[in-house]
């Protein structure tokens, strides 16, 4: 009988010894800092924001172990100094592999309704699953990536803290990264003050001071930007996000070497269309367009001014296409450029919360 009780006691001791004493699962809800003039963000019900999840996502964003040869992280092609885009026309993956499209700037992703230039991902979590196994990007199978993370005690603990799981997988990696990316909100540029003023939204005293610092050239550029007979930019780039959620052929080519959205939908009416990108922090995110063909903002303005190529799927809102573009003169180009520079959100690109934990 006593042997039986000793056996029971041993079992109890064994189980108690296995209990995780140091790492618990008690996630803290994360409060997103959404600017007052922005809409609320829809957070997926199966991936609520937590402090632990956001921290884990930040760790993973700069984790080079997620690439085959441990040389590349998400942050390699989405660098803070480049407004979380890539200064190169095409990003370089492991083993020198080169992609075919320019890295998109990561900003205000929580409000997007599609991801990638061709919109092939419908959710942020879905998008995140692609770059790791992509041969021209990180080129690492997810099972291997997860195995590497599981071999690291720091990650094992953080995944448990964030999701209460020991046997985590790629879906947990995607969720954590998505949580971090949703925190990357840009809404404190000079343009935001101009937007609020133009939309009769009350300004704080500090915002009023910023409004008073807006130059006449910047206001003139803003007027041009939203003028039907000016630069005519506002159809695709407006609102707090400085973009609309659509795919558009903006007259880059008469013949398409990249079908863009059309390759996803197999609808010829979508050929040559790409996701309309935000113009936020545009001064920092060169080069431009889906293929990074334009190195400078001047090149972009030149395209819309005189370089429009006609094709069957050109956006009907490119209303000056038949004339080759909106025909801005030198002064107008300078004004438009001055306005585009107001879209730089210095607080966003220097936010320490978006930088590597251990730079």
């Amino acid at each position, binding site marked *: *009988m006593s042997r039986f009780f000793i056996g029971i006691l041993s079992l109890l001791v064994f189980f108690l010894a296995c209990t995780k004493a140091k790492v618990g699962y008690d996630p803290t809800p994360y409060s997103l800092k959404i600017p007052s003039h922005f*809409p*609320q963000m829809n957070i997926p019900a199966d991936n609520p924001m937590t402090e632990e999840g956001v921290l884990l996502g930040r760790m993973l964003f700069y984790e080079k172990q997620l690439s085959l040869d441990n040389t590349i992280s998400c942050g390699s092609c989405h660098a803070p100094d480049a407004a979380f885009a890539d200064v190169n026309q095409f990003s370089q993956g492991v083993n020198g592999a080169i992609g075919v499209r320019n890295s998109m700037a990561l900003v205000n992703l929580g409000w997007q309704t599609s991801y990638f230039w061709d919109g092939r991902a419908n959710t942020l979590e879905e998008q995140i699953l692609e770059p790791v196994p992509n041969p021209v990007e990180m080129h690492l199978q997810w099972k291997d990536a997860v195995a590497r993370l599981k071999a690291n005690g720091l990650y094992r603990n953080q995944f448990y803290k964030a999701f209460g799981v020991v046997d985590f997988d790629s879906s947990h990696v995607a969720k954590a990264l998505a949580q971090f990316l949703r925190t990357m909100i840009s809404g404190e540029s000079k343009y935001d003050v101009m937007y609020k003023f133009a*939309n009769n939204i009350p300004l704080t005293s500090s915002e009023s001071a910023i409004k008073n610092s807006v130059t006449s050239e910047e206001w003139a550029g803003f007027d041009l930007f939203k003028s039907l007979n000016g630069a005519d930019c506002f159809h695709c780039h407006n609102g707090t996000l400085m973009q609309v959620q*659509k795919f558009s052929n903006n007259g880059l080519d008469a013949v398409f070497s990249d079908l863009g959205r059309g390759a996803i939908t197999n609808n010829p*009416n979508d050929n040559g269309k790409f996701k309309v990108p935000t113009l936020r922090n545009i001064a920092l995110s060169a080069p431009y367009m889906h293929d990074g063909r334009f190195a400078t903002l001047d090149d972009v303005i030149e395209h819309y001014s005189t370089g429009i190529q006609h094709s*069957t799927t050109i956006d009907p809102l*490119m209303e000056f296409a038949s004339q080759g573009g909106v025909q801005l003169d030198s002064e107008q180009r300078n004004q438009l450029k001055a306005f585009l520079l107001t879209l730089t959100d210095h607080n966003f690109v220097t936010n320490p919360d978006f930088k590597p934990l251990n730079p």
Partner: protein
Amino acid sequence: MKHFSILALLACIALFSCKKKKDDLVDTPTPAVQQSKLSMKPVFGSANLMLDSVYTMSNGFQIKFTELKAYFSGIQSGGSVMKDVALFNFRETGNLIFQSNQVVANPSSIQFGIGVPSSINHNDPSTFPNTNPLNIAIANDMHWDWNPGYIFFKVEAKVDTIIDGITSCDHNLVYHVGTDSYFTNKTISNLTWAALSSTVNEAWLKIDLKNFFENSAAPIDVKTEFTTHSMMPQQSAITEKARQNFSASISEL
């Protein structure tokens, strides 16, 4: 052994006491909510209309539509408001205008505005609840921040005005109608509701985009009247035509 039996018994009691008793769950049937669903079918004359498909106008021009969206507001019947605001977005959400819990007489007369009333047209579009069609995340390109307010309806198309047997719809048509003065009230009489299911009644409207261009009271010449954003004075005539014709083209299916 006696101690073991007692322990086992206690363990069993503890386990079973934690089990949710089925008897505790009161099975209270919730009454089925009766709903009304209003849809709209775009047509081109007698043909069903699909975006990106080519149709022939009475003058022989060929046309394909690329976008059709509209705000309907203050939708009511018999003094009962069925929906404050609804966004019809043919490409993204198909035929549905709205579905609500209001049930109205059958047949019934419904009244609605085409557009957004001035009382809310100029509000900050970020302040509407996430599920409200006026929230900027849903409104998307149906809101003008440069002239704060909503686009009441938009019709976009590409037309081929050269009748040579070769289809080449490359002439863009853009009709974006908004601003307070172009808000339009509309009444549909004798709208018939049919049972879609035991809880949902459905009624259908149609919008004839052939009539949008060829309405005898105000025909639109696509060669010269190909664009409006409701803003510039020189566009007021075409904007008014588009407003009239859009409203006149909506009827019971």
